[in-house]
Every structure is written in C-alpha cells, then in structure tokens.
C-alpha cells in the first residue's frame, strides 16, 4: 500500500480528474449556450391549442416545465405546463402564454397558419383573410392570398430600403452638411471682426441644401404613399381581424407546410439577418450587426495602441534598464496592475480621458460645437484606450518573458559581427521574441473582448444610430458612441421590457460573442504559429 502511494499513481489520477472537471465545465457552458441559442432561429411548427373551456390559442410551443400547483390542492403536487409564443402583441399585449397541460383538449397543426415577421409589434400568428390594393380587395382566403403575399413582400422590401437609404443616407448627409455649415458660421462669429461676406456665403449654401432637402422630402412622401398602398387583413385564431400594411411585413412563412430543406434555408437566412442587420423593437428582434462591428473595431483600436506601448515598455525594462531593486519594483507594479478591477480603469478613464483629455480637445478643436461635447463624452476611442490600459500589463509581461528567452549566444553572435545593440535588438531579438509578443496580444484580445464594465461608462450605448465608420469625411469617427456585444447581452437580458422575447437573444448573442473571441484568437494563434515555425531554435 505504501508502495502504491509512493508510485505517484494517485497523484496522476488526481491531475487527470482535475483536468476532466475543467473540460466538463467548459463543454457544459458551451453546450448550454449553443443549445439555447442555436434553436432560436429554427422555424418551428405553429400549433393550434384548443383548451377545455373552448378557447383557442395559436403559436409556437417554446417550452415545458413542471411547477408546484399553488392554485388548488395542498400546494405540493406538481403539474406540467406548456409555454406558447402566441405573438400578436398588438392584439393580446403579451407574446407568451403558459397553459397547464391538463387544460389542453387538443393540439393540431393547421396547414394554413401563417407566421408574419413584422417591422413593428413582433410576430403575428394567424390566417390570411384578404389583401387590398388602394382599398379594393384583390384576393380573399388563405389559398388565394398566399402567392400574392409572397410576391408582394420583396416588392415592398425594395421600397422600404429605398426609403431608408433616402432617410439615413441622403437626408442624413444633407443634415450633416447643414450642421457643419452652421458650426462654420458660429466659428466665424466667435472669431469676431467683419466676416459678414463669408457668413452670407455660407448662409446661401445652407439654403441651397435646404432646398435639396425639401425635394427629397417630397420624394419620400410619394414613396410612403406607395408603401402603404397594399394592406393585408389577418384573422387571429380567436376570430379577431387585424389590418396592416404589407410593407410592414418583413417575412411571411407557413412552417406547417414547409419541408425540412425549406426550413433549413429559412433558418440560414434568419441567422444571416441576425449578424448583418440592425436591431429592432428595443433590441429584442432583428440583428446585432452594429454590436459586432463595434466590438471588433474597438478590439482593433485597442490592439493598435496596446501592442507598441507594451512592447516598448517591456524592451526598456528587459534590455536597457539597469536590473535592480527599482526595476523589480516596477515589474511588481505592472503585474499588479493586471489585477486591478476593470471598473476602476473605467472610472479612471472617465476622469482622465473624457473629462481631462476629451474636454481639452473640444476646447481647442471643436469650440464651435460647445456646449455639445465631441470628444468630451464617451466614445469608441476612449473605450479602446481604457481597454488598452487594462491589457497593457499582459502584453508587457508576455513580451518580457519572450525577450528573456532569447539566448545570449544569439545576441553575442550579432554583436560580434559589428552590430550595435539597437541593431541586434531590432533585427534579432524582437523577431525571435515575436511569438511571445503575439501570445501577449492574444491574451489581451481575449480579455478585452469580454470586458463590459469599464465600457458602460466610457462610450457604449444601447442603440447607436451610426456606425463609427461611414462614408462621410473623415470616414473614421472615433468620437462616436458604439454598441458592444457584451453590453448588448446585459441590455437585452436585464434591461428589456419584454424579457421572455429577449431570452433567446441573450443566448444567441452570447454564443456570437464567444465565436468572435474564438475567431480573433485563432487568427492571432495562426499568425503566431507561422512565426514560431520561422523562428524556433532547433533542438540540436
């Protein structure tokens, strides 16, 4: 028995169990998020549930659970109940409904039940009654109207996109120009002296733009009229009619009549919509594209800042500073900096970057716009700098380790050939330490992507009207507020008025965030392995 303990086998088992445990936790986490998130986009069948009291419900079955029956009995026996997504928020007020299983008399899947995804008011479940064009009926009944509806939706989507592009693009551009001209006028007035000639010139330009604006507005009115020309009337399962513009419908499908492949292609198009479009309905529907964009752009800016700073600092610490008590102290401080709670960095950033630097920048370069802050408020630049500050210790530590691992022989070899210390560092030491530097960057990216707390006070918002990059000069707008996946999860999950509807969004967004972290890391790992191959010292 003593021999058994001495052999070390139990220890090996212990290490194995510890590893297993960690792997299980990771797998469990991923499984939970993937299972809850991935199913969200699948068009499940629409069930018509007939209850004992002869009421009828129509919707997707979204869940089952067992609860203690508190309404009757002694409160200890369990009853099963089913959750239905019944939609029709404009008719019922609530999207979801729980039904006790013992109340259900019959569940059927009517072939003609239609799901409408709408731009407003969420999903509608029901049957088509009729479609009208400028008030006159063009078809009635499910069978006749379905093909008409299918052909109308793309047509109205096109009009909708046209309206959006005029509103956001062209009119947005005009507004921006008018705003810039106004600021120019204000700037001239602040300068003092006689600027009336220039001011009147700018005024003329503003009027010119306003004329264009009127023209566009008229065009918009025509489009809007066309947009609301065709109307559809739906009948809900309990017999109530609801009329709405066909233009309001994003997508219509009849899941009960669809084959598996049709459902799969619909699933993919919904996933694509999720990653490529703006959110709707207080972020509970639509896509998360601005959040993906904001997250990635923020990480990029952070990398651009953190990499040179961290590497330079590590180079000084390792290569040039005289090793001694002071350097050791600095090193300890750097290591400890990595453990400071991130919200503390956020608070620092608000005080230093936003109120300090930002307000100074505004005072010098954006005087005309005051009191409206430009850089003196949260924005993607400040958020990225905060994260850079947060992750710079990681890069410093990793780089230092990489530099320390470069063998002395190689440095001596370079020096013996007449290279200066700078040339040796630049041409031999840094390339050799590159894999370690990139490892530091990978860790920094992984930490930065998942960070939310400091961002909440340095520039992340629930809904950003514009992306930080667009087609208007200077194209990259670092002062803009932005959306972020991590914050999006928090916002949708805990700040949403419609918790049930938002729940699947939380899981899908979390899954997406994990995927983005994986993709960013993989990219860096592939680059690092390429370099490693190039620079590894051989075993000989």
């Amino acid at each position, binding site marked *: 028995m003593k021999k058994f303990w001495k052999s070390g086998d139990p220890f090996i088992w212990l290490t194995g169990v510890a590893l297993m445990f960690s792997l299980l936790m990771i797998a469990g986490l991923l499984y939970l998020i993937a299972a809850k998130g991935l199913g969200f986009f699948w068009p499940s069948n629409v069930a018509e549930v007939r209850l004992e009291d002869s009421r009828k419900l129509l919707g997707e079955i979204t869940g089952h659970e067992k609860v203690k029956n508190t309404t009757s009995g002694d409160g200890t026996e369990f009853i099963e109940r089913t959750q239905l997504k019944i939609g029709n928020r404009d008719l019922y007020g609530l999207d979801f409904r729980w039904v006790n299983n013992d109340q259900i008399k019959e569940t059927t899947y009517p072939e003609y039940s239609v799901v409408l995804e709408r731009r407003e008011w969420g999903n509608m479940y029901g049957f088509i009654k009729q479609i009208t064009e400028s008030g006159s009926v063009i078809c009635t009944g499910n069978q006749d109207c379905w093909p008409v509806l299918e052909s109308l939706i793309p047509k109205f989507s096109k009009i909708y996109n046209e309206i959006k592009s005029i509103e956001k693009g062209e009119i947005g551009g005009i507004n921006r120009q008018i705003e810039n001209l106004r600021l120019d006028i204000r700037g001239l007035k602040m300068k003092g002296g006689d600027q009336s000639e220039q001011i009147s010139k700018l005024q003329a330009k503003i009027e010119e733009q306003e004329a264009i604006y009127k023209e566009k507005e008229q065009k918009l009115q025509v489009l809007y009229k066309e947009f609301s020309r065709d109307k559809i009337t739906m009948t809900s399962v309990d017999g109530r009619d609801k009329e709405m513009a066909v233009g309001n419908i994003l997508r219509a499908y009849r899941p009960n009549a669809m084959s598996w492949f049709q459902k799969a292609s619909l699933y993919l198009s919904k996933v694509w919509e999720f990653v490529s479009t703006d959110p709707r309905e207080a972020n509970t529907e639509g896509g998360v594209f601005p959040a993906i964009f904001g997250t990635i752009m923020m990480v990029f800016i952070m990398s651009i800042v953190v990499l040179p700073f961290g590497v330079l600092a590590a180079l000084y610490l390792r290569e040039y500073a005289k090793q001694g008590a002071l350097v050791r102290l600095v090193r300890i401080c750097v290591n400890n900096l990595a453990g400071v709670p991130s919200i503390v960095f956020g608070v620092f950033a608000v005080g230093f970057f936003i109120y300090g630097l930002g307000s100074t920048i505004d005072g010098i370069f954006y005087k005309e716009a005051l009191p409206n802050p430009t850089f003196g408020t949260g924005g993607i630049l400040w958020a990225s700098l905060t994260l850079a500050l947060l992750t710079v210790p990681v890069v410093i530590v990793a780089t230092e380790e990489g530099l320390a691992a470069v063998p002395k022989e190689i440095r001596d070899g370079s020096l013996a*050939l007449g*290279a200066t210390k700078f040339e040796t560092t630049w041409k031999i030491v840094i390339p050799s330490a590159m894999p370690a530097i990139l490892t530091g960057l990978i860790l920094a990216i992984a930490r930065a992507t998942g960070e939310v707390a400091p961002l909440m006070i340095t520039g992340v918002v629930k809904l950003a009207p514009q992306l930080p990059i667009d087609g208007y000069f200077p194209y990259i707008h670092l002062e803009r507020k932005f959306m972020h996946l991590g914050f999006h999860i928090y916002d949708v999950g805990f700040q949403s008025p419609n918790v049930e509807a938002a729940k699947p969004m939380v899981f899908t967004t979390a899954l997406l965030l994990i995927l983005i972290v994986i993709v960013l890391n993989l990219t860096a790992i592939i680059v690092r392995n390429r370099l490693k191959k190039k620079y590894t010292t051989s075993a000989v």
Partner: protein
Amino acid sequence: MAIENVKEASENTVPEQIKVHGDPKSSKFRVPDPIVEVNGVNLYYGDKHALKDIYMDIPKNKATAFIGPSGCGKSTLLRCFNRLNDLVDSATVEGEIMIDGEDIYDPSIDITELRKNVGMVFQKSNPFPKSIYENVAYGARIAGENRKSVLDEVVEKSLKGSALWDEVHNRLQDSALGLSGGQMQRLCIARAIAVEPEVLLMDEPCSALDPIATGKIEDLISELKDNYTIVIITHNMQQASRVSDYTAFMYLGELIEYDTTETIFLNPKYKQTEDYVSGKFG
C-alpha cells in the same frame, strides 16, 4: 598522439600553487609578424582577478591555440580581442591590446569597426533564426550593403570559404535552424568571414560536434589560416596539436607558457604545461 621526451613526473602531480615563472614582461615570447599585441593586460570581474598581467603576441595568418583547464581565463582573454567583455557590467580591463598597431581599448576606437575586423565563432553554434542566406548576409547588411548582387556574391564566397556551399546552395532560403550541428557551426564561420575580418576568434568551435564534423572544421581551419589569423580555444589536446602553429597554456588567469605548438607538446619548459598536455591534470 605520442609525446616523446616526456619528462619524469614528479611526486606531486597536481600543483597546488602556481609560481610565477619570472617576469612576464621580460620573458614575453617573440613571434614573427605579430598582428595582436597584448601588453600587461589585467582584467577584473568585480573583485575577482581573472587575467593577471598577460603579455603575448599573436602572429599574422597563423593558428594560435589557447589551452588550459576550465576557468583559467582563455575565453576571457579571447573576448578581450573583440571587446565582447564590455557587455559584462562588472568587468574592468587594464593594460593595452594592440591590433594592427592600434590600441583597441582607446576611447576613440569604433567598437563596431573593431568587431567587423575581429570575427568570432562561439562554442555553441548560434545561427540567427533566419534563412541561411540572411544569416550569412547579416554582417554585410549591418554594414549598410543592400545591393542584391553584392550580397549574393558575399554569401556564395563565404559559404564556399567555409566548405558549406555544396551542401546548401540549393536551399539558401531555408531556415538555418534546419541544418545539422556541424553545418550550423560552419554556417557561423561563413557568417564570420563574410565581413572579411583579419582575425577570427574561435571559442571551442568543435566541443559540441561529432568526430566527422570536427574533422571538417579542422580541415577548414587549416585552409582559412592562409587568409586569416586564427585564435582557437580548445580542450582537445590532439586538436590543438593538429591545427595550431602556436600554443599558449593558461592557468588560473596567468599565461604560463607560450611557444610553438611543437615545443609546448614535445618539450615544454614548465612542469605544469607538461602535466596538462600529457593529461596528468586538467
């Protein structure tokens, strides 16, 4: 290798205390056409007296071997010749070392120029983590040469000079780290001669190599002797006797004996030298 005329070993084979054999300055061994002249060099690592009053001349275009037990100061003396000891913070050097008639410890000396003139090959082969081509071209690039035609020429000439060209000429762009140990060491020699130094310092270049690779390097040293002054440190007595023209025996920071290789191995003046070369101690 047989040593003839071996003197009778005394009862005390390992000397406990080395006596200084006369005044090192007046007894300095004279060589023809010296390129390196060491005059009264003392070197301290902090408090430790690592080199004690060294006087020696190193002849041009000959191979000179430094032998002696570990820690006797051979490497330290060698690293004085290209001032690599400057990298050790605690090291201080006294005395003068003349190369080509210039004192290399004079403050006006450009260290990078000196190191281009005095190349070095290390004990552990240390190719840079770059391609074979870039390893050899490194010195020339540092010197500011960037024309491809010139670099190509330098690389080819140096690799031919180190007898490596035939083995690697069709994979110059491969990583130098994929070479064998012997090839790596010859690559390091090629890298060193690419900057056309006058003096080539070799710090135990074969200690990590197998006999065949060692033989190749020794052949190479014999060839290089025609154009370069070679100073080689070795722990291998046979190697010293095979490749060198002159041999210096050092012990505890002192230069005990310096003479032609023949004299040192066959007819040494001092007993410690004899004991060391015959393998009685060390």
